[in-house]
């Protein structure tokens, strides 16, 4: 188990990167605290897997250093880093039995045979494959193969970190939930540092203590699920996390007033005079419909009842605004305004959040 430090780390797949755009992973400084479970969240191609492969040593970074417990391992090969990693698609050793597959990493490190036997049994119970231990891995379903891969990742107790690269992509939905719970309990039991790459926000939010959101090769925010929800540091975080995502509207902000599409609203807090491309972001949870003259004029286009609440899709000068309404609320067609709860209003300048002035 180890604390993992990234120092000025950046990676480009090009031999001579010149421009910032040439980097798949832009310069990054970060500490992964020992024993925490992190989720690395972002859309496809944002550099998540690149970062993971650099930590495990499968990739050598173009610049920067990686430290495990303050010891530089930038040039250490994967085998010396003592890391477990599970990949997106199942990797099993076809000609071996399930038992041999699970025992493989231990045997390669010369572990004691009686210990291997017990440990393999334990892991098999965890992934629910005790009955198939003596079957050949070839011919098993993709589900089962991925469970073996997960099992092989978890079989070593002394690893510095456990890395998961979208490991549940090929697994059935109900099994997904079960395995995720297993991983979480494993984490609570053994306290490994875990990094879990995913593009599924539910997966990230339920698995991790801290969620790291990446966008275009950059870490845009790291925080608890609650922080990501309440104060998204970047419009991408607002948009990517939440269902539906945050409403982002171009605005002209002066102090505690914003003019959106010709209508002035109050922000409740002062934001100074932000420059560049200024936007106001409000989560659907903080928006509500009203009648009268206050708020932005909208026309309701559609109401989706998703059980616990309703999602109202409204049109505001060609842009869509999503509003979350409680299950009991009635929505009448004459509601033609949307008002924002000022506690949930964020202001963005060039996509980055503007910190409000302390009143």
């Amino acid at each position, binding site marked *: 188990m180890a604390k993992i430090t990234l120092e000025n780390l950046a990676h480009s797949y090009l031999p001579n990167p010149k421009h910032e755009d040439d980097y798949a992973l832009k310069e990054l400084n970060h500490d992964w605290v020992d024993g925490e479970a992190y989720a690395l969240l972002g859309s496809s191609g944002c550099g998540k897997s690149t970062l993971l*492969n650099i930590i*495990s*040593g*499968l990739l050598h970074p173009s610049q920067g250093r990686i430290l495990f417990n303050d010891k530089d391992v930038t040039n250490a*090969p*994967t*085998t010396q880093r003592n*890391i*477990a*990693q599970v*990949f*997106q*698609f199942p*990797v099993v*050793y*076809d*000609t*071996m039995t399930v038992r041999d597959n699970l025992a*493989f*990493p231990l045997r*390669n*490190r010369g572990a004691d045979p009686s210990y291997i036997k017990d440990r393999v049994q334990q892991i098999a119970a965890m992934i629910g494959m005790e009955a198939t231990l003596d*079957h*050949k891995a*070839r*011919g098993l379903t993709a589900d089962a193969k991925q469970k073996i*891969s997960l099992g*092989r*990742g978890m079989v070593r107790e002394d690893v510095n970190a456990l890395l998961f690269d979208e490991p549940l992509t090929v697994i059935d939905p109900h099994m997904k939930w079960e395995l995720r719970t297993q991983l979480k309990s494993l984490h609570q039991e053994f306290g490994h540092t875990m990094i879990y790459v995913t593009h599924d926000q539910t997966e990230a939010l339920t698995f991790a203590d801290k969620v790291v959101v990446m966008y275009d090769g950059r870490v845009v925010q790291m925080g608890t699920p609650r922080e990501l929800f309440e104060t998204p540091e970047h419009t991408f975080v607002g948009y990517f996390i939440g269902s539906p995502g945050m409403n982002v509207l171009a605005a002209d902000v002066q102090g505690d007033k914003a003019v959106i599409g010709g209508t002035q609203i109050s922000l409740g807090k002062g934001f100074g005079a932000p420059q560049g491309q200024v936007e106001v972001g409000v989560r659907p949870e903080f928006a509500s419909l009203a009648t009268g003259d206050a708020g932005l004029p909208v026309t309701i286009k559609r109401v989706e009842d998703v059980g616990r609440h309703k999602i109202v899709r409204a049109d505001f000068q060609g842009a869509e605004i999503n509003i979350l309404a409680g299950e009991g609320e009635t929505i009448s067609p004459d509601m033609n305004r949307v008002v924002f709860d000022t506690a949930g209003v964020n202001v963005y300048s060039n996509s980055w959040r503007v910190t409000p002035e302390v009143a």
Partner: protein
Amino acid sequence: MNKTVNQKAWFLILPVLLLVAFSAVIPLMTVVNYSVQDTFGQNQFFWAGLDWFREMMASERMWDALGRQIAFSGIILAIEIPLGIFVALNMPKKGFWASVCLVLMSLPLLIPWNVVGTIWQIFGRVDIGLLGYTLAALGIDYNYTQDFYAAWATVIVMDVWHWTSLVALLAYAGLQSIPDAYYQAAKIDQASRWKVFRFIELPKIMGVLMIAILLRFMDSFMIYTEPFVVTGGGPGNSTTFLSIDLVKMALGQFDLGPAAAFSIMYYLVILLVSYVFYTVMTNLDKRDGH
């Protein structure tokens, strides 16, 4: 679902049937025809029954040729398969040099067989051949026209030179289809180089390797042109393999009856071995697939 029965559908296989009849069945039948008859010229034939088969079964000459043939096929398989895999493992995976390697590797496969024979025939000559001359200059007594071991070594090295590329290219294709994640996982699991080969690479190339073995077995078992050009079957009968012996018998001595019987037995042996090989191969798959 109920199957529609329409016996007229048999006509659909008629074209294939005709094609196979003219390309294989009819020629084979003429051989069968010769094998059960005797002739003394003037195109007169007499029924001989299975006499020729009995004669061939008792023929020491045929058994010797078969023995040499099995030894030859066994030796070249034992060299070409491991060597081909070794070459494939060491070829660059991508980039400019991968293409260069592929082209260089395919060159021997493109050379006509009698040219291969001629190349080695000259190459091995003690007076003007680079190989023969060099060996002689080093004081090694090498003469493939007179020495048994030299003749065998020449024929085997020639075959290895000619055909290892095929094994290597097939194995290379198999290796290329292994996703990177397997190698990455092996690194994570701290697998040694040998284990990576044994548990990742070998299982993945097993299928193409079986095809390579089958192809090389059949081809080497029927080899004619190259040894014929280089050694002519000699010295003595030491490199007279089955095909060479057969041609000597059929065209040299014009013993059509025994030669025909020989051909049929030769054909059956190849068929049998290939069948056994194929069955073992598919059963291996099934057993693992359980």
